[in-house]
């Protein structure tokens, strides 16, 4: 099947082009002026000076609000993920290696909520937060984000399959109490799964749109994803009808592309750092199930 190999390679390459070309375009777009984006070739490089110019416009928009959006996103995603790590890893450990009353119930409820589409719960969560007078507070985003059943499930699977109970028993016989058994033995052994939970939780929080969109009223509190939509609606990039608004705020296509690109960087960093563990982890998960 020599011929088959060639066709295989062509198909794979064609799809790789579809996956990668928009990213290359996005990286190059801020190097050009709005006019050059239309007139020059899509993959031409403009100049770094243009990037600086686009950043000036973007940063000037609404009194440095772009920086506030990135800061908010970092606060929400890192704050929530910190709580997720502190609650989900021990919970997975407890669920996997003991059989307290109600364990099955907690496990099945976790699974049910995991399958439940998150967006369907946003409206009732809004009403709950309203009753607690938390609407418009940073906690109204961080606390719901801090509930991450998928993380509990990952930690549970990991402890149930990868850590032998005998190992922990041995530690106890050597005089460790429950807490130090967890801290000295179980936690260090769980490094790969801590990495996975961190990655999935951070990315899910960073990219979430619906919940912050519903619970935050003031645009200075928006995370970057909601901020991007705010930016989109104040430029004439896709609709000349906004016209004058765009002239005043100086946000055109290069600025919008730069805003999008910068919004992806934190996820890209986390992604590149954990890429190896991630791919291996997904494969390991596939094997275990």
């Amino acid at each position, binding site marked *: 099947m020599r011929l*088959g190999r060639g066709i*295989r390679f062509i198909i*794979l390459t064609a*799809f790789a082009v579809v*996956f990668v*070309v*928009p*990213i290359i375009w*996005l990286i190059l777009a801020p190097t050009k002026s709005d006019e050059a984006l*239309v007139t020059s070739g*899509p993959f031409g490089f403009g100049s770094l000076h243009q990037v600086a110019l686009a950043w000036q416009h973007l940063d000037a928009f609404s009194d440095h609000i772009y920086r506030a959006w990135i800061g908010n996103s970092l606060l929400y995603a890192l704050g929530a993920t910190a709580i997720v790590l*502190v*609650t989900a890893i021990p*919970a997975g*450990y407890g*669920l996997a*290696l*003991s*059989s*307290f009353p109600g*364990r099955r119930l*907690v496990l099945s*409820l*976790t699974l049910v*909520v995991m*399958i*439940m*589409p998150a*967006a*369907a*719960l946003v*409206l*009732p969560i*809004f*009403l*709950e937060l309203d009753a607690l007078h938390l609407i418009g507070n940073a906690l109204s985003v961080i606390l719901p984000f*801090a*509930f991450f*059943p998928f993380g509990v499930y990952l930690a549970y699977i990991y402890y149930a399959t990868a850590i032998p109970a005998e190992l922990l*028993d041995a530690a106890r016989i050597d005089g460790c109490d*429950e807490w130090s058994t967890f801290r000295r033995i179980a936690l260090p052994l769980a490094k790969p799964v801590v990495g996975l939970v961190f990655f999935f939780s951070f990315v899910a929080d960073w*990219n979430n749109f*619906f919940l912050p*969109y*519903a619970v935050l009223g003031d645009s200075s509190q928006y995370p970057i994803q909601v901020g991007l*939509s705010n930016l989109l609606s104040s430029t004439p990039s*896709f609709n000349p009808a906004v016209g004058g608004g765009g002239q005043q705020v100086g946000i055109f296509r290069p600025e*919008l592309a730069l805003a*999008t690109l910068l*919004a*992806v960087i934190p*996820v*890209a960093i986390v*992604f590149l750092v954990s890429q190896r563990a991630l*791919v291996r982890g*997904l*494969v390991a*998960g*596939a*094997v275990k199930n």
Partner: protein
Amino acid sequence: MSPVRAQATRTRSLRAARGLPFVLPYLPFLVVFGILPMIYALYLAFTTDTGDWAGLGNFTRTISDYRFLPAFEHILLYTGVWLGSLIVIVVGLALLLHGRANRVSATFRFLFYIPGALAGASAVLVWLFMLDPSVSPGSFLLHLLGSQLFVESIAPGKLPFVFAMIAFWTGAGGWIVVMYGALNTIPHELEEAARIDGAGPMTVALRLKLPLIRKWIAYMTILAFATGTQLFVEPQLVNQASLGLVPDTWSSNQLAYQMAFRYGDFNAAAAISVDLIAIGLIAAWLIVKRTGLFRTGD
């Protein structure tokens, strides 16, 4: 009971009591942001705004809303297109990658995975650029499809396909990695045996590998269906980019949002959410039944 067994039972029950404190910090989150909202959504869907029992009133009221049927038609068409392309292309690419030299396949997997870093609003913005014939690197394709202007690219008839494309672009890479991992669990001897029996690569792929990863395909289909029906950010941004040309009640989730926040009608919004959950559960049940996802021993 032998002394050894008795001791084992004792350590187990000791261990049992020891596990609970580790789970305790997680429980308030599970209750407050998982279980209560679910119960609350059900309660709202079956009561009136004064808390009286409404029966199916909220459901019939929302179904007869003129925006209800179009919104559900949109998301079902979108979900259908997305699921179809996801299943055919993801499984196809994973099969093509499997059996290639490891280095080559790892490179392709990484390239396919990259757009996964963009999701939500960022991915939509990228594709708004891609769909704008004046700046898109694929403008010749857009012209071929009959779009000279941006508004023509996001014409209502094309939107389900546009959103399916965006979802595929960000989500397919992750699933290709999962499917590839699943393919790697197939014992090598099995493939070898088939080949000795004279099966070509095509036959091995379709007759041997495909049935063996059936459960993973079912798992992907269930999860993708559930997220597919929840479409919100994509049409919301297109609504803003098109200055209202695309309605802000294009998807059923948007309709629920408008019911709640524009009209303050949380009961109607909850009824639509319950509709969506019911559709998701029915679809999941059908897929599980048809594919034997939870059947053990095969």
